[in-house]
């Protein structure tokens, strides 16, 4: 196998696709995972021009493909870069959209990764929790499996158009910051938090509500955990 290693940027990825395209033994990766001794490593230098050519071609074959690939690369699949690469090959071979060819294992895998991101986005629309700080800014820390921040922020801008808020991905040390008008995504470290005077009251009313709305004579804890995986509980006040 020929391991094409590239820096974890979109330009890096599309350059690697360009370089590896004709190589039947190519495997794309940007992690420092060790492969076996027979494998050789090829280091990819990001090149705007090459990346652009790949993207232009893909757009021509299937205008939504770049969107699909962006999602695949945001998933937490260990071989997501290679999965995206194989998906691109399918598109180029077919010279058109392939997303409905579910029986093709390369297509199906890419669709599964894409789906995983979409699935977690839906979960985070529900499970993200904001706390109000002294200055009125709403602050939401979270640790998603996939890299979602740029994707979910639009949902919250639409509903909290007049508020200021921060959505902080603690795992990737970055945050979307919205000031009521504009939004930027930036590197972000744990802030000093001063919560508003009401914050504790609302949190405790929420817990009261959570306990009261449960029907105790009909326990179904497995279903709860199935719909709301335990790994997400860390930032849910009602589970503490």
């Amino acid at each position, binding site marked *: 196998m020929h391991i094409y290693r590239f820096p974890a940027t979109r330009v890096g990825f599309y350059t690697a696709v360009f370089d590896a395209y004709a190589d039947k033994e190519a495997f794309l990766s940007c992690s420092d995972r060790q492969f076996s001794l027979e494998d050789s490593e090829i280091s990819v230098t990001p090149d705007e021009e090459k990346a652009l050519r790949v993207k232009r071609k893909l757009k021509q074959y299937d205008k939504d493909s770049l969107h699909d690939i962006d999602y695949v690369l945001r998933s937490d699949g260990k071989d997501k870069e290679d999965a995206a690469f194989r998906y691109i090959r399918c598109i180029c071979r077919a010279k058109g959209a392939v997303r*409905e*060819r*579910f*029986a*093709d*294992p390369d297509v*199906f895998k890419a669709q*599964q990764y894409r*789906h*995983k991101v979409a*699935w977690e986005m*839906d979960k985070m*629309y*529900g*499970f*993200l*929790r*904001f*706390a*109000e700080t002294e200055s009125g800014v*709403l602050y*939401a820390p979270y640790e998603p499996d996939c890299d979602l921040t740029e994707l979910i922020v639009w*949902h*919250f801008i*639409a*509903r*909290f*158009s*007049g*508020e200021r808020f921060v959505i902080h991905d603690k795992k990737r040390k970055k945050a979307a910051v919205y000031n009521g008008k504009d939004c930027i995504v930036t590197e972000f470290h744990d802030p000093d938090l001063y919560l508003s005077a*009401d914050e504790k009251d*609302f*949190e*405790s*009313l*929420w817990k*009261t*509500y*959570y306990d*009261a*709305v*449960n*029907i*105790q*004579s*009909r*326990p*179904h*804890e*497995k*279903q*709860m*955990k*199935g*719909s*709301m*995986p335990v790994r997400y509980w860390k930032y*849910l006040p*009602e589970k503490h």
Partner: protein
Amino acid sequence: MTPETLKILTESAKYDVSCSSSGSQRANIKGGIGNAAPAGICHSFTPDGRCISLLKILLSNDCIYSCRYCPNRAEANVPRATATADEICNLVIGFYKRNYIEGLFLSSAVVKSPHYTMVQLLSVVKKLRTEYGFHGYIHLKGIPHAEQDLIFEAGKWVDRMSYNIELPSENSLKLLAPQKTKRSLLEPMHDLHYKKLYLKENKSKEKFLPAGQTTQMIVGATPETDGKILRLTQALYRNYGLKRVYYSSYVPVVQDSLLPDKCTGLLREHRLYQADWLLRFYGFDVDELLPSEGNLSEEYDPKCAWAIRHPELFPVEVNTAPYEMLLRIPGVGVKSAYRILSARKYTRLTMDDLVRMKVVTKRARHFITCDGKFFGTDDESRRRNLLLLADKEENAAKAEQLSLFSDAPTAFSALTGEV
């Protein structure tokens, strides 16, 4: 609002099953708070496995009615509480801003009179929309016997309304909820439906119940069969345009000589939801599923039971069967049918392809051929046993499967009752 008030008003509201926040596309305005997501959003799950989407609360539990099954009936000796409009609005905004909830599900006991209660409910909703600038989802419970003008006015401000039928027959209503009549529940549902149709036909821009109506029936408190319940359900979907009918397994909250003292099993509720899905998304008619006096099979899901009764229609060839028939294969849901339909345009599907596409074949294999090959068993009794086992395993394993991403389609189906 004090924690005590919140507790009383929530505990009185919690037996209402509906918590969905879907079906509406209400947009926010500049500087306002909230919008509605058409697919609905679940914000938490309680240990009973139910989702929390809306703040489900009564305005008051101080009731003049005496429905036998209700803990808040007039004669009951329970703590009473009434919230003010501002208390409710503040709570909704406070919870919404923290992303705890998707909106409000407001209901009330009948205080003083149906008219008075409906006026109060309407004033809370209007206040929330105008003074508090809230554009999120609102579900309002309709009060039986309230005047038509009032409920039409309410329809302009909220996303969804519901009248709960509770007991699936006039007799049971008479016995257990003497102040409610079939007419007082069905008439407003009918009126709201036709008002919405009228506005639509005249291309009115006015928003009116964008998420439609729902209702709920208690299952197991009274002797109605599944056949009766599902016939009523189908009529409600077809004639009144309802979006959902919810079923609630009876839980004894009140001791009464006319009521059973045991919970109705969750399996019956589960089977009813499966059948309900067949009526809405799979093109089944209730007459195909069971006779009026019959109950759904406990052993098999209703689609599987139907397929066993119709051996003449199977096996079907997945490479050629029309979509309607794919949907009737046991174990094949809307998503799998769509995958098969899409994938077979490009290749002749084999059993391996189906497995790779994560089409669940445990049940389906006995009812299909892939490229002419059959992978099930012809032996009638052996097949029944395998199907029985498939259902048992699924019910037992459902919860574990839910947590695994790789089984997302299963997880989806367990949530929605899809079969």
